[in-house]
């Protein structure tokens, strides 16, 4: 795992709650709002299960910590989107809280309901971008959520041990967190 230069993180006291909201003006209509909200909810829950940070959706876009929107081309941050495929999304390091997705992509939440060869899994990309918002940069571990690329119709939304160790280095561990990796570690320690 890799941090951003200077290792920025959200600096509130633990356990912390971060709010997020969707831009009403910058939204896609190929998926329902319910599908989008549920995909993001699952993505946020993954990170919240390993660190003492919780995420709550709010309606006030201006006052929220994390602002989520779908944008086309040039959208004011100097990093224009490039149409179908290429760049899928980008987001910013703590505590900027902006998560932008390319509105031109064929976003999907269930590949069984689309035959498009360029369909991109929204939940996987959301999970990756939330990692950036929390302070993780790109990992060289191909199985990690924070690996920078994702093929169309692929899904990589489950946190890898590399992602978990990285984010826990920034925020500590969720007291309720117990991973398959720690169980394996316990078992081998007991056998030893």
């Amino acid at each position: 795992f890799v941090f951003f230069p200077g290792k920025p993180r959200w600096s509130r006291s633990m356990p912390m709650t971060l709010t997020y909201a969707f831009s009403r003006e910058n939204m896609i209509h190929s998926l329902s709002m319910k599908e989008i909200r549920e995909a993001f909810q699952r993505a946020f829950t993954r990170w919240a299960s390993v660190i003492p940070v919780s995420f709550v959706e709010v309606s006030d876009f201006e006052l929220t910590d994390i602002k989520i929107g779908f944008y086309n081309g040039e959208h004011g941050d100097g990093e224009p989107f490039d149409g179908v495929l290429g760049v899928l999304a980008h987001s910013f390091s703590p505590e900027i809280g902006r998560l932008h997705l390319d509105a031109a992509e064929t976003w999907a939440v269930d590949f069984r309901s689309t035959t498009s060869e360029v369909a991109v899994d929204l939940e996987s990309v959301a999970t990756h971008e939330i990692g950036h918002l929390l302070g993780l940069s790109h990992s060289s571990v191909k199985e990690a959520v924070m690996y920078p690329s994702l093929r169309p119709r692929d899904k990589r939304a489950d946190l890898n041990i590399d992602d978990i160790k990285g984010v826990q280095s920034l925020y500590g561990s969720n007291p309720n967190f117990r991973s398959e990796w720690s169980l394996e570690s316990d078992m081998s320690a007991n056998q030893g």
Partner: protein
Amino acid sequence: TTPTLAHTLTQSATKIAITNRNIHSLNNAGRGTKITGISQFKRYLHRFGYLQNNNISFSDEFDAVLESALFRYQRNLGLQVTGKLDSNTVSQMITPRCGDPDTNTTPHHHNHVHKTRLTKN
């Protein structure tokens, strides 16, 4: 001879335009080779933080700077480190990705992003 890529090359820094029959000429390209279209790989590597260039114009020569950037890119992305535009590397480059640069190679780029956001805020 200078092989020519038989297609219109994209000007986008984030997309690599390539066809199967071009892979061979790129795969054999090494330092000193000139192939039309190499500049798109330089532009891509610059965009994602692997190649420094203040002029933002790129030649089609496979030079030492490109080779060095490829070494870093391949190492960083867990690819076999060849310093060449081999098929695995090109395949990785045409795979959709996150727009954030790979920061551990060029910390200054993200500093720039920080500055931009701070100014806007």
